[in-house]
């Protein structure tokens, strides 16, 4: 049976929802629908699985996912600078 969870757009980013949803992809087909103010996450069980998703558990995942996503975004300039230094030919330590 399909299940829908409603998430307010003002509270969570779509990217964070995608991160949170990764955990569910093995057991469900997932679709993100939306209107002006909300996202509606639709779960359709794969391979006859009929485990109901706990809405609270999903929201907990989403809170952690929002943190992970924001952290990865904030750290981009730092990561890029470091990777560039690590991968490009070495010229001078103070370069």
């Amino acid at each position, binding site marked *: 049976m399909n299940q829908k969870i409603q998430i307010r757009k003002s509270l969570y980013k779509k990217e964070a929802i995608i991160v949170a949803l990764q955990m569910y992809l093995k057991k469900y087909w997932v679709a993100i629908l939306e209107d002006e103010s909300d996202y509606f996450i639709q779960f359709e069980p794969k391979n006859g699985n009929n485990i109901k998703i706990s809405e609270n558990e999903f929201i907990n995942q989403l809170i952690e996912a929002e943190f*992970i996503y924001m952290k*990865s975004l904030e750290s981009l300039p*730092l990561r890029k600078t470091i990777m560039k230094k690590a991968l490009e030919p070495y010229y001078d330590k103070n370069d």
Partner: protein
Amino acid sequence: MIKMTNTIKLSKDFYSPSFISECNSSNGETLQEVAIDDKLRENANRLLIDKYNQIIGNPVDEISSFQLSDLPAVNYFRSLKISEDEYFISVDTGNWMIISKEDYELLKKNTVNKSLSTVLEKNFILLTEKNIDSYINKLRIRYGFLTEGPTLHIVVVTSNCNLSCIYCQASASNVAANNMNQVTANETVDRIFESPSDSFIIEFQGGEPLMNFPAIKNIIQYANRRAERDHKQVEYSLITNFTSTVTKEKLIFLMENNVSISFSLDGSKELHEKNRGRNYPNAFEILEKKVALYKKIWASLTDEPVELNALMTTTTTSLPLFREIIDTYLNFGITQINIRSLTPLGKALDTKENLVYTPEEFVDFWKNSVGYVLELRAKGIEISEFFLELILTKLFGNETGFMDLRSPCGAGYGQITYNYDGQVYTCDEGRMIYSDYFQIGSIYDQQLNNILLDAKTQSVFESSILEQYYCDYCAFKPYCGVCPVLHLQQKDKIQINVLETGHCEIFFKMIQHIVELFINDENAREEFQKMLMNVNWQKN
């Protein structure tokens, strides 16, 4: 299995002399200066940087918004809740630590106290002026393989085989057209020696490679001459079924040329023979005789302890038999077992044989095997397991060179496969798949450089970079890798949705199990430490 010395090769202009001497003193590793083909080196690095930037945002030139003078800063860390009150957190160099829930919350809010910040700094979770150089250098070593060029050259000298194992894509055949001829063998060696790498391994595979022994002999003799002329170092290995194709003369030649031989051994007599197929009764007895012959010749040539390497393949029948399988290895005098899951390619997918199990079933089998290995070690019996050693080595600070579990994976840039007909593939698995996606050239038409710079090779290379997948949020990313070949086979595309694959489930649980054993089990921890002292890392 190929034993490698603990040597890292660095190009002179890529690393500063001070960095090289720093590594010499701190890691005790021997560092050599080698000439690297500039175009290739630049290309591999550029590819990774471009891909990295494409994955995580803006083009490379817009990255100046962070200056190293802005430090200290919290590094990008990935976390996993491992118990009610603890988190495992890791950074790109593979450094990790366990942190309490309380401290984790402080870290999330960026409000760490002095004592916590000292520990975080030590583990590179907090980057400061004091540790940033060392962090960058560690990353540079980690990605050092990008500058080497392919170091593993697999030569498929024949697709013929004398057996028809139930899980193998090859069937019993003996057709001359399936053998590599002398012209192709020589051309293959010429392509191999175009590799920028100063030392590499040539590995013979098949079918059953010993069915085309003239090609093996020819390649070794010609490659030895080329190695001397070009001042390169070449090692050999060979994967065989160790049956009637093995003769005294062949073994003497192989041992005299230091060819490291690995043979198939799936477990006890019953299991081993079941897997060899109906056409080959007494396979186990024959194997025992050939191993005895091998040991006798070895003893006549050297005083060194005999080196025996075997490969097992897990089928559904193997699952409850982990003790018997390991005991069989010990009876043969083999002290390392490689609990490999079946590669779901070719005949292994044939549902009639019912060979394939779920990822959970495989992980349970592996955990049981590791448990038994630890039990035996506690009794003083020398035995280890390949993936246990591999993951431990990765967790405790070294990239291993194992190409199927790293990012980017070895396809093309780390290993190359030359088929008997002159076609070139990114890797051996790439040759076995239904699609020609991984066929990246022909030894007759292109030089190795051009094969590697080809768009197809690059797209495979790129598709195995973990940062573009969910892996970028996974705490085990620094120790993991994905396989585009398996993904194409299973999902019909090489862009990977990792969490949908058995591969992710298997490796996530394997790494998690080792971390948990390390934290919670004092005896296991002690054995792990002993194992790490003896790791002589293997290459492919």
